[in-house]
Every structure is written in structure tokens, then in C-alpha cells.
């Protein structure tokens, strides 16, 4: 076995890092199950801590939260018919009817087991695909990298928005914000208006805290779902029976494969993967008529897909530095704070750390299974936690998190400003995820574009002569055209 792999495994298995994973899992299950709180909110809560903790521990903590947040979402979906996270919406379709039949424990046991199956499948994908993809990515030149980042942005605009124009606008505004500060090639100050705070640009973590947390805090003011409902369902036996496990193997496999694949694509995320896998599992089932009435296969498919998405999303993040969703974007930020840049070079320069992340992901899935199964009866009591305590705590953590990043009040004001932008975007039905991705990738996009054009002396054919670059540009164009055509058809249908 490769020395880096052994080192990575040892690092991830150190007691302190295992403790980090376990704490992360506990937190993830908690925030995941509280309707209205997203995994991103949970991450924001612990983000300031990660600045001062060791990178291994921070990543273990964040990965634990990421993985278990998905599982936590299914608890409230099953017990209350209120999905804790958007990804758990499909789980409620069959989970809640099962709970109403008095089989809440069975439904939750199945969802935890299926989630574990999906997580382990995506771990294998991550373990085998990530190093290979990193090797391929090492051959990329500036033009290829530009086209790849462009593809990441194009696909996220296509998937994340109801309207293509609004998705693209969100990304362009993100790119506009990225140009504030020193330019990445020559270091010239741009759009700083003489303000020294703006010279280093706007930190995307500050922007992210504002974009996600402030709109959520505002919407929670009138949202009655959060913390008002206690878990009243009787759980019964949680441990799944062998027969049940045999019955869900097909739907869990479908969910895992779909989840891992869709997780790799930036912006697709858990909710889409869960609904697609639910639909496929129904088609492949011997008893499709049971779907929607309390089928365990209907619980297993979306839950395995949700958890498989996490490993899938880590693949482009680790190998290409492209985040698949807000959580992986924060993970990139947490790594950058510690001077570790995710991308193909991570597997060359810090392969031990890269494998450490992969094995921390494995541990997160194992802990998720163990803690969720053993602590479920206690954990569901969290559903009664009042929002009167939670929301003010999140508000304070937003301030502390933004301040602690660079010990600067300026970042706190920037966070609030982005909160207002987030509210405006919500009012306009404009998705924030493309903007977030643009904030993360914008500098790279500009740098690769300018380096590529400088090397070709201004000849833009460089983007079409390289096979990799051409491939990604074609994919970008196709993804945009497909969404455009779909939108046009939808509008024509409505008008007729």
C-alpha cells in the first residue's frame, strides 16, 4: 500500500481526529433534523472554530457534520413530515406514512442503513476515482482549466435556477464581486476606492455567511416549523431486520449510484439526486404500488442517494478545486485558511492530507451509522429545541465567524451587506449558489483566462485546439442550451 494512503489512514484514525468526526456527526444530526436549519447553518456555527483548530481536526469535524446532516434531515421528515433538509423531502413521501402506521423506528432504521450504504459507496468512488482524476487534471493547461471552471459555473447556473437568466446573473454578480481587490496576475488594485480593507478582496466565507444565514434568520421570524414540534411518534424497534435489508438492496444500490454520479456534477445536489433515485427505484421495484404509502424501498432510495451525493461532491472539490455545493465551498474555504489549496496538486504535494480527508469521510459514515442508531431516541428530543434560543445563537455566531476570520470589523459589515444581497436575491427568486461558486472560482477563472491568452499571444483559438478545453466548452454550451430549450418549451406550453 502506498505510504501516503497509510499516513492518511493513520491521520484520520488518530483519537483527536476521531473525536472531531464524532462531534461533527452529533452536530450534523442535530442541525439536520431541525426543520429550517440547513447543513450550511450548522457549518457556520462551527466555522470560527475551524480557523484555530488543526486542519485535520477541522476537516474531520466539517465532514462529520456534512455526512450526518443528510441523515438528520430524514428524522424530522419521517417523524413530522417536515424535511429537516431539502434533500430529505423525498424521504418524507414514504417515511411519514410508515411512521403513521406505527413503524417510525423501522423507517428510521432503514434510512440510517441506506444512508450508510450510500455513504460507503461514495467513499469507494472517492477513494478510487479522486486520485485518478487528479492525475488527469495535472495534465491540464491554463486553457483547459479555464474551460473546466467555466463548465462548473455553467452547469451550476443551469441546475440551480428556475430561470437561466437569473442563474447566469447570479454568477456574473459573483464574478463582479471577485474583481474587487488586487488582480490575480499583476496585483493591480481594482475597484478598491482607496480603502485598504478592500485590497485583499472580499473573503468568500464572509460573503457566504451573510448570503446564507441572514435570509434564513429573517425567514425564521415567521416560520412556525422550527422547534415548535416535538417528536411525539413512538419509535419502536430501530435496528433493521435482515429481510428488510434484503428488500432494499436494489433501491439502495440505485440511489447510491445516482447520488454519487450526480454529486460529482456541481450544483445538482441532494434534492435532485433523491427525487431522481426515488423515481428510478419505483420503476425498478416489484411493488411500485406501495410507493407513497409507506414503502421501505421508497425510504432507502432517496436516503442512499443523499449520502452518496456527499462523497460524489468531494471528488471535484478534492481533485479540481471545484465545489459541488455550498458545504464543499466552505470546506474549500476551511482548507484555504490553513494554506491548503484543494486541486490536483494536493494529491502530489500533500497526498497524505488528501487521503486523510478521504478516510475522515469513511469514519464520518461509520460514526454516522453508530451514533444515529444508538442515540436516535435521545437525538429526536432535539426536535423540541426552541428557535428563540437557536436563532439568536446563529446570529451571534455569524458575527463571531466573520470577525474571527481576519479579526476585522470590516468583515462583519461585509457579512451583513451580503446578508442584504441574499435577501434581495430571495425576493427576486435569484439563486445564491451560482454566486457562491463564482466567488470561490472567480479568481481562478480570470487567472487561467489571462494566462492562457498571454501564452497564445491573444489568440482565442487556444480554447478550441486543446481537446480537454474543447470538451468542457462543448459541455458548457450544451448545458446552457438544454436549459434554455426546456425553459422555452415550458413557457410555450403555459401560453397555449
Amino acid at each position, binding site marked *: 500500500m502506498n505510504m501516503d494512503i497509510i499516513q492518511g489512514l493513520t491521520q484520520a484514525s488518530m483519537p483527536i481526529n476521531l473525536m472531531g468526526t464524532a462531534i461533527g456527526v452529533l452536530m450534523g444530526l442535530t442541525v439536520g433534523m431541525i426543520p429550517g436549519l440547513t447543513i450550511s447553518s450548522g457549518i457556520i456555527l462551527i466555522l470560527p472554530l475551524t480557523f484555530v483548530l488543526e486542519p485535520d481536526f477541522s476537516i474531520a469535524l466539517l465532514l462529520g457534520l456534512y455526512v450526518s446532516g443528510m441523515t438528520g434531515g430524514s428524522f424530522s421528515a419521517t417523524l413530522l413530515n417536515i424535511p429537516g433538509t431539502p434533500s430529505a423531502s423525498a424521504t418524507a413521501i414514504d417515511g411519514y406514512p410508515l411512521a403513521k402506521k406505527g413503524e417510525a423506528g423501522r423507517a428510521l432504521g432503514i434510512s440510517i442503513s441506506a444512508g450508510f450504504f450510500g455513504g460507503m459507496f461514495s467513499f469507494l468512488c472517492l477513494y478510487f476515482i479522486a486520485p485518478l482524476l487528479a492525475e488527469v487534471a495535472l495534465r491540464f493547461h491554463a486553457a483547459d482549466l479555464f474551460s473546466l471552471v467555466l463548465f462548473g459555473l455553467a452547469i451550476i447556473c443551469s441546475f440551480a435556477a428556475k430561470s437561466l437568466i437569473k442563474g447566469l446573473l447570479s454568477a456574473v454578480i459573483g464574478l463582479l464581486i471577485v474583481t474587487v481587490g488586487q488582480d490575480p496576475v499583476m496585483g493591480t488594485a481594482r475597484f478598491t476606492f482607496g480603502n485598504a480593507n478592500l485590497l485583499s478582496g472580499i473573503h468568500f466565507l464572509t460573503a457566504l455567511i451573510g448570503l446564507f444565514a441572514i435570509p434564513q434568520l429573517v425567514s425564521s*421570524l415567521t416560520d412556525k416549523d422550527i422547534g415548535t414540534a416535538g417528536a411525539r411518534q413512538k419509535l419502536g424497534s430501530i435496528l433493521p431486520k435482515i429481510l428488510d435489508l434484503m428488500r432494499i438492496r436494489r433501491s439502495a444500490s440505485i440511489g447510491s449510484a445516482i447520488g454519487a454520479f450526480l454529486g460529482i456534477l456541481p450544483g445538482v445536489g441532494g434534492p435532485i439526486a433523491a427525487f431522481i433515485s426515488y423515481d428510478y427505484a419505483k420503476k425498478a421495484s416489484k411493488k411500485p404500488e406501495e410507493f407513497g404509502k409507506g414503502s421501505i424501498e421508497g425510504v432507502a432510495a432517496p436516503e442512499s442517494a443523499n449520502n452518496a451525493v456527499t462523497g460524489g461532491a468531494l471528488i471535484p472539490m478534492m481533485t479540481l478545486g471545484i465545489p459541488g455545493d455550498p458545504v464543499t465551498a466552505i470546506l474549500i474555504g476551511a482548507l484555504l485558511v490553513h494554506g491548503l489549496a484543494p486541486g490536483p496538486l494536493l494529491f502530489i504535494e500533500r497526498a497524505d492530507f488528501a487521503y486523510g480527508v478521504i478516510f475522515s469521510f469513511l469514519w464520518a459514515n461509520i460514526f454516522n451509522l453508530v451514533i444515529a442508531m444508538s442515540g436516535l431516541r435521545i437525538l429526536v428530543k432535539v426536535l423540541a429545541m426552541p428557535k428563540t434560543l437557536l436563532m439568536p445563537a446563529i446570529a451571534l455566531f455569524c458575527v463571531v465567524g466573520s470577525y474571527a476570520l481576519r479579526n476585522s*470589523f470590516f468583515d462583519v459589515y461585509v457579512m451583513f451587506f451580503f446578508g442584504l444581497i441574499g435577501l434581495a436575491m430571495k425576493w427576486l427568486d435569484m439563486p445564491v449558489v451560482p454566486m457562491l461558486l463564482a466567488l470561490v472560482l472567480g479568481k481562478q477563472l480570470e487567472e487561467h483566462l489571462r494566462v492562457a491568452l498571454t501564452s497564445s499571444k491573444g489568440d482565442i483559438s487556444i480554447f478550441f485546439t486543446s481537446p480537454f478545453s474543447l470538451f468542457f466548452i462543448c459541455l458548457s454550451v450544451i448545458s446552457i442550451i438544454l436549459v434554455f430549450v426546456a425553459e422555452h418549451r415550458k413557457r410555450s406550453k403555459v401560453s397555449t
Partner: protein
Amino acid sequence: MRKKNIIAGLFLTVLGLAYGYLTTGLPERSLPNTPGPSFFPWIITLCLLVLSASLTLQGLRMEAKTPGTDKTGQHQSPAYFFLGLFVVFLASLPFFGFLFASIPFFAALMLCYGEVGKLRTASISFGFPIFLFLLFRDVFNIPLPRGNLDMLSSVVNVLT
């Protein structure tokens, strides 16, 4: 006609024009055929203007939402109150420091989110910011802002 899209489209057009104007002030690179610092901002300006024009046009062509379907305008007063509270908190932060500014802010937020227990509000709004302040100062070595306490003590001196 969908007003929201038109307003957003026009606002973004103005933003694009202003951004383009500021881009004209950026230095050009002297080497021929190589992109300078203003190259990327010009691309953004172009994209922003085209997309915001498209959004405006889309807003003009689309039918308005039927009354009652758009719920974004409802229950706005708690939101404004929350944002106002946040602004006051942020403005007071440099002067009073994290601890003294956070206690009333936390209490106000608890009430804002529907807390009715006075003792509970008082104890948590005191306890939580103090816990956070000490946690960051002593455990994570991140001293949260203490504010201009000198100013406070001088005020006290003047008064006494």
C-alpha cells in the same frame, strides 16, 4: 409585466454601466496582445448588460403574478425590525465591544423570535455571550472586540 424582474433588470443595468465606467479607469498593460487588469472586468460588464437587458425584457413580456400568489410582501415588519436591530448592534459593536453589545442584542432577538419567559431571556442573553466571549478568548485564543472601554470609563469619570 413582472415588476420585480423589471426593477432588478434596470438596477443591474445601472450597476453594469457604473462598473463599466469604473473599468475605464483601470490601467492597461503595455505588452501587445496580452490581457491587462481591465480585460476580465470588460467581459463582466458586457455579460451583465446583456443579461440585465434580457431580464428586463423578460419582465416586460411575462404575465404578472395573480394577486395572492406572491407572498414575499407579507409579514415584512418583523424582518425590518430584525434588520434594524442588526444595524444598531453592528454600529454599537466597535464602541461597546462584543460583550456589552451582544447581551441586549441577544435578548432583543430572543423576544423577537417569540420568547416570553423574562427570567429565561435574561439568563440566556447574559450567559451565552459571556460563554462565547470566554470560549474564544481563553480556549481559541481569538480575543473578540472589547470596544472602546476607555471611552466608557471616561464618561463614568466625568459623571462622578
